[in-house]
């Protein structure tokens, strides 16, 4: 089995990988469906069961969406791949800024962020200008945005408004653009197979988040204290460690599809999981500050469609850290 897979061409290997992943998702969906059929005599227990199923369904949907996007990205070729991730950034930033208190004076800065910074950053990825790509937003845009805002002649909450805009750009554009950038890293003896690296990152981070979520739910039922209850009821150190270990172990197991040996894969997964899960916590703090449970703003319905940011924030934080540690360690 392993030999057969090994002898396939890279393209066939990637195809086989997607078949396997879609198969696993289907199995998970089937299992969930069967579990949802269970009946309970006690209505309270039944409600609890339903909530749990709803939660898991949500997670499964996210996974489907992510894998599907990556599949399309792989099929579509370089340019459309960038466009796809660019659109992801666009919708995530739209969501982020909807709930940030920008004023009329920020209009030009917003135009700059959406229609200049975003396309340019992805253009830099596409043309593999790695040096400029890593400093363009933290150095140049960092100055350009407040200059444009200052010229709008409105000092009210200036720092707050700009900080939020900068933050949105960092997370939604800078972080996100590191995901397709992974496709362009040139590891020795790893030709054409960078799609695996992308899948590796997504699987590892998503596994970490799912495990953390499931363990946290169990621990919450046992009334274990959260680490920062005002920010997140479900962030419990023990659950976090479980997620980290699960993600990293999966990473080590998947070393075969990466250019890394198992030890390196373990370490890099550990770093990516740490960045992703802690980044998710940070985003939760941000949401609490705005007084909303999820970005979609359910119940208040400020933002309408979306909830995109909830799904990709861990990846947005994990991708740059993963990218740069891999690049630094392998001297690429």
């Amino acid at each position: 089995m392993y030999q057969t897979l090994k002898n396939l061409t890279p393209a066939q290997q990637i195809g086989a990988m997607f078949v396997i992943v879609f198969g696993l998702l289907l199995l998970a969906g089937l299992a969930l469906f069967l579990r949802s059929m269970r009946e309970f005599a006690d209505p309270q227990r039944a409600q609890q069961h339903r909530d749990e199923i709803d939660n898991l369904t949500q997670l499964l949907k996210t996974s489907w969406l992510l894998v599907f996007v990556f599949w399309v990205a792989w099929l579509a070729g370089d340019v459309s791949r960038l466009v796809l991730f660019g659109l992801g950034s666009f919708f995530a930033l739209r969501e982020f800024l909807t709930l940030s208190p920008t004023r009329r004076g920020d209009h030009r800065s917003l135009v700059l962020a959406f229609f200049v910074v975003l396309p340019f950053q992805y253009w830099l990825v596409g043309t593999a200008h790695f040096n400029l790509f890593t400093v363009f937003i933290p150095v140049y845009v960092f100055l350009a945005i407040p200059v444009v805002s200052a010229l709008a002649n409105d000092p009210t909450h200036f720092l707050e408004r700009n900080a939020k805009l900068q933050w949105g750009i960092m997370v939604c554009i800078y972080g996100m653009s590191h995901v397709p950038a992974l496709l362009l890293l040139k590891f020795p003896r790893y030709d054409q197979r960078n799609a695996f690296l992308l899948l590796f990152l997504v699987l590892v981070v998503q596994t970490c988040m799912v495990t953390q979520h499931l363990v946290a739910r169990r621990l919450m039922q046992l009334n274990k204290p959260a680490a920062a209850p005002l920010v997140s009821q479900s962030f419990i150190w023990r659950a976090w460690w479980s997620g980290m270990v699960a993600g990293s172990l999966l990473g080590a197991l998947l070393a075969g599809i990466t250019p890394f040996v198992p030890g390196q894969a373990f370490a890099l997964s550990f770093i990516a999981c740490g960045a992703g899960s802690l980044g998710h916590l940070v985003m939760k703090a941000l949401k609490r500050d705005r007084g909303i449970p999820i970005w979609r703003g359910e119940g208040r319905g400020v933002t309408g469609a979306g909830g995109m940011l909830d799904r990709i924030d861990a990846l947005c934080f994990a991708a740059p850290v993963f990218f740069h540690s891999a690049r630094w360690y392998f001297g690429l």
Partner: protein
Amino acid sequence: MKKLVLNWAAVAMSYFLLGLIRVLTGSQARWWGCPPKAEQRIYFANHQSHADLVMIWAALPRELRHSVRAVAARDYWTKTPFKHWLTSAVFNVIYVSRERHADEDPLEPLIDAMHAGDSLILFPEGTRGFADEPQAFKAGLYNLAIKFPQVELVPAWINNVQRVMPKGEVVPVPVLCSVTFGAPMHVQDGEERHAFLQRARDAVIALRNV
């Protein structure tokens, strides 16, 4: 032939605008107080941006878009041939003139449309406001409601659109927006004009926080 081409252009334009407004704003309709129905109604909403017209038009279901007609100021929307074409061929608006002439009723085009069975979208502030809360409502809404007592009056709150394109800017930015439709209301027996307009305005403002 020319008419056919213009017709196609109008259809293409409406799809383009719908796509654009979805990408920019998500164009979310929230039917909070009533379901969308093909019965004669007067929708009235806050007015902060020219995009309000497009926004509420895009938020309506496709089946209603033809029979629900917005009311727009003639002097502004017929200034250039393009604006004129856009508002008449694409949005099918009803023009009202803002300057009063002694011998004509400014509501006459609206009354004609109501008699023809169309629904209306009114911005009773009369002009765009820039404060957080809408300005005082003008009497047109009350007069129409008295004239057509059987027609439901549906308040609507358009959220966030002023952030998409503030006055004086040409490039819109993407921000999620929504239109919230409230519960239908009527003029109560013997209700005074001022009291009714105040109540209508409160109903619009109340939708901000649902």
